[in-house]
């Protein structure tokens, strides 16, 4: 694909991104519904989805605001959940770092799991790609996913008030999060990190200002990192 023009790179990106509409759609829909149930207006829901574009962080912020957690804790927790985008940004820098600043600003705004995963794989497989072609491909992967994200957020918000009462929506969030996390449990350090985080979070429930979440999260991360080191040392010995 070294002959890729900018235009064809964009459309290749659009095509490659299409299947991910199925992933983004339901989460946006769920966010719209839950946020409306929590009392947000359609305008507030759309602003949230447009400004933040991060499913897990939005769910986290919504839950903690409903728990009346202090704003600082809401922000730190939601950003911690979204920390992985900083790693995506680092991983894409060697490929996109040479683009003009205004393009990098837009690229940063649109950096989500899907645009990262597709673009990184493509750039890695095709080192001949020019920087403009890479940017075009990158924006292509975002197009349908973002349209779906905003469209389904709206649909969820519009639908939210129309749902019959009695649906156990309170538990939609734990199910969504556990579904996101369970497939990530690939290695022992991942399991240890999650296990320690769960135990500490339960013990830390009485800790004020919802600080328990941060304590549990950091404990889990440290436990995962230590387990990884321990496995390395054992493998080397």
């Amino acid at each position, binding site marked *: 694909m070294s002959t890729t023009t900018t235009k064809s790179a964009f459309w290749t990106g659009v095509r490659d991104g299409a299947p991910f509409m199925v992933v983004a759609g339901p989460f946006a829909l769920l966010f719209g519904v839950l946020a409306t149930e929590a009392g947000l207006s359609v305008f507030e829901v759309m602003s949230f989805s447009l400004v933040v574009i991060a499913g897990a962080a939005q769910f986290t912020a919504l839950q903690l605001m409903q728990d009346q957690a202090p704003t600082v804790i809401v922000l730190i927790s939601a950003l911690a959940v979204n920390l992985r985008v900083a790693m995506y940004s680092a991983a894409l820098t060697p490929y996109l770092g040479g683009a003009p600043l205004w393009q990098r600003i837009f690229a940063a705004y649109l950096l989500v799991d899907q645009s990262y995963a597709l673009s990184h794989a493509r750039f890695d497989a095709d080192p001949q790609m020019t920087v403009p072609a890479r940017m075009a491909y990158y924006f292509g992967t975002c197009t349908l996913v973002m349209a779906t994200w905003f469209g389904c957020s709206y649909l969820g918000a519009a639908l939210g008030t129309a749902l019959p009462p009695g649906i156990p929506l309170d538990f939609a969030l734990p*199910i969504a999060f556990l579904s996101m996390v369970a497939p990530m449990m690939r290695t022992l350090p991942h399991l240890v990190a999650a296990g320690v985080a769960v135990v500490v979070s339960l013990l830390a429930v009485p800790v004020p200002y919802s600080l328990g979440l941060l304590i549990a999260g950091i404990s*889990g991360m440290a436990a995962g990192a230590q387990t990884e080191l321990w496995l390395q040392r054992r493998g080397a010995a």
Partner: protein
Amino acid sequence: MIDTGTLWLVIILLGIGSFLLRFTFIGFVGNRPLPPWLLRHLRYTAVAILPALCAPLVVYSGEGGSTDPTRLAAAIVTVGAGMATRNVFAAIGAGAFALFVLVYVIG
């Protein structure tokens, strides 16, 4: 209910914060590599924070902070299905199905 002022503060600051997370490297840091110890911890953020957020919601899901067996069972089904299939939507489907069956059929 969520206070409107707080909500907009969170939306705006979270938007700025999320943007900075995304922009840091692509915009400021360039190609400098991160220290290994930091990467080693960052690898486990999602698998630590998300379960830590869910655990109290699952365990204290009943009236007045008791444990609701139907919700606990639905959570276990979700995690089991997710680990067995490695598929987010299979896990959501299994968890939602289990919750509906337990809540409506058993009570």
